[in-house]
């Protein structure tokens, strides 16, 4: 890990020094060791603040959205899942490949700083103390799929059956399923952090902020919450790159990935095989911008 820190610092200094990039997006340390923060280095000096450790979990590709209207050239560090986010942005026409210098890291799996916060700072009764962050246990793509420079050695996917949770729910009866979601999703405080952190949520104005019509009510109750989550999941259909950030940041532990993975599984079964953000082909559009005459259907 220290190794990566040094290497990233060197690359960042080099790129910033020779003007190849104007800003380099990586991480730096916050107050606590586990309080790692996204960091935007703008000079070789600042590049020395960069670190990469167990807690560099944030999918930085999302922060490219802050730069979509500028012309700055950007260096960015991505892990496997994060790199799929870059493809998401390219496919969604939100950033230009020429503006990016991508440093890929073959990801050994990360720990969750938020989990650590809760555990260490006394907000959890019993510390969870997990080895890897939940999302990293389900990782199908630890190695970057797009990069200009690659660090580390190839890792193998860590996932057993990433749809295990989905299948569990599928096995329930309709009423049990509804009850399950009613219980979990009524917790949602509708902070929309899951939206803000999501690289696939790259719209300029979000439909949930839309007033004409107001698609989804703003009340914090089961139905409005459910509407929010169903619409969000459907907007992720064929687009979610499974970085797991949404579920990770949720302050009330809504199992957002359950819905995302359900859709991923279905899109795969129905129109697949298809995994979003695995490779970039110019002009490529996600599954709901196309069709096959032979698509399955169960229409009456």
């Amino acid at each position, binding site marked *: 890990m220290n190794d990566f820190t040094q290497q990233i610092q060197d690359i960042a200094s080099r790129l910033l020094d020779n003007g190849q990039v104007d800003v380099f997006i990586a991480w730096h340390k916050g107050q606590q060791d586990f309080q790692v923060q996204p960091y935007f280095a703008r000079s070789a000096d600042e590049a020395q603040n960069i670190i990469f450790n167990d807690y560099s979990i944030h999918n930085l590709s999302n922060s490219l959205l802050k730069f*979509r209207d500028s012309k700055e050239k950007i260096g960015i560090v991505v892990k496997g899942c994060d790199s799929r986010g870059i493809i998401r942005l390219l496919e969604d026409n939100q950033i230009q490949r020429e503006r990016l210098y991508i440093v890929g890291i073959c990801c050994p799996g990360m720990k969750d700083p938020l989990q650590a916060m809760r555990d260490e700072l006394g907000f959890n009764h019993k510390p969870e103390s997990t080895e890897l962050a939940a999302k990293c246990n389900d990782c199908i793509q630890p190695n970057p799929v797009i990069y200009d420079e690659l660090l580390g050695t190839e890792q193998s996917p860590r996932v057993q059956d990433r749809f295990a949770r989905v299948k569990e729910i599928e096995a329930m009866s309709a009423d049990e399923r509804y009850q399950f979601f009613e219980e979990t999703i009524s917790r949602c405080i509708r902070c929309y952090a899951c939206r803000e952190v999501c690289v696939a949520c790259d719209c300029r104005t979000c439909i949930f902020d839309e007033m004409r019509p107001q698609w989804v009510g703003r009340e914090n109750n089961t139905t409005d919450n459910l509407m929010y989550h169903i619409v969000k999941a459907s907007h992720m259909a064929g687009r979610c790159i499974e970085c797991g950030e949404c579920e990770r940041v949720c302050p009330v532990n809504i199992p957002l990935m359950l819905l995302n993975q359900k859709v991923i599984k279905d899109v795969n079964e129905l129109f697949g095989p298809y995994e979003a953000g695995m490779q970039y082909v110019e002009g490529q559009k996600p599954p709901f911008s196309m069709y096959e005459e032979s698509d399955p259907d169960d229409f009456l």
Partner: protein
Amino acid sequence: MVAAAQHPNIELITYAEVQKVAGYIGNFTVTVKKKAKYVDWDLCTGCGTCIEKCPSKKIKDEFELGMGSRTAIHKLFPQAVPGKPYIDAEHCTKLTKGKCGVCEKICPTDAIRFDDQDEYVDIDVGAIVMATGYDLFDWTEAYGEYGYGKYPDVIDSLQFERLSSSGGPTGGAIRRPSDGKEPKCVAFIKCVGSRDDTKGKSYCSRACCMYTAKHAYQVKTKIEDSEAYVFYMDVRTAGKNYEEFYQRSLDAGAKYIRGRVSKIYQRGDKLVLKTEDTLLGMPMEVEVDLVVLATAMVPAEGAKELAKTIGFSTDKDGFYQEAHPKLQPVETFAAGVYLAGTCQGPKDIPDTVAQASASAAKVLGLLTRDEYATDPMTSEVDPGKCSGCGFCVPICPYKAISLVDIEERGAEGPFTRQVAQVNASLCQGCGACLPACRTSALDLKGFTDEQLVAEVDALCL
């Protein structure tokens, strides 16, 4: 065609293919590939010396449907406009092997150009009329009972047209392909591939009844002591003077038998047809010299792809879809694109001409106006909301949506970004693009989100 070619306002481009159509009503750009002809038509006088002298003579003549041969330098068909030859590169020994070049040497005007290249031209037009016509249904793939094409004397009616044409391979004498003998007994089978849900098409090809009547009449009048059998399901003669023509054919002695031929097989040099006369309810067997199949009309090869390129739809059989079967029979859903002839559906020449004239009139009506009023029910993009993801772009069947650059004022000064834009003159208001847009940056006038949600709300009260 000659008249068209000579019209001062008509430019006829032959031996060419449409590659791409961009733009919209009033402003189309059509990219045309003019195929290399290896003959400079400006110099060529069409004297035909080269055609006579060309040593590669044994090439199957496509126009004669395999019943004649031609040279490598040749005219596509006798009445081709302009009446000038081109070199079929695939068969020319000079072009394939570098030898020969006879034509070049003998051409009195030095019109031969072995270094000719395909040429691409962009043509700006305001409207497009589709008249790509038809092909015949490939019966050899479907009708095993008629021998899948293994009997040379089972031909389709277009081949018969060539046989009976004075400009055809036999100079107008009806001869059977296998041995060149004059057939004394000819059977015509109608509705091969038409009105046949199981093997062919469900529709009626409309022209067959009349041309078969014509063909039977030709047999009866051109060949002495001949017999013409017509096997039919119905005789449809809806058209001015059609019934009268059919009667003439009957009067000339054509034998109409209602029944579907269930099998054809060879016996000696004859063909035997097994069938049933359904009017009498009697099975029968007929021995003939030649069988002519009135095969179904199907859309011309490549017609569907062409429709896709231009951006309008085809019906379930691949014919071009008119905008409305009764009220807009010559328009397509793509504004500025019109239809004429069998590309829209089977029809005969009078109907083709009528439709073509209607299209021409529509085009004139369009092009003489300075402004064009579109249907108000079109899609619109709110550029403020659009993120420029372009997901909606491929969904529009009319290619009405494109990404354009816009200038915006940001916190750090102006910047450009891409947003979708709907060309209102192309949009037909289907609204298919809307659900593709997550931010609902698109809305459809007349069926806006707000209106539909209000409707849902009201109906759920």
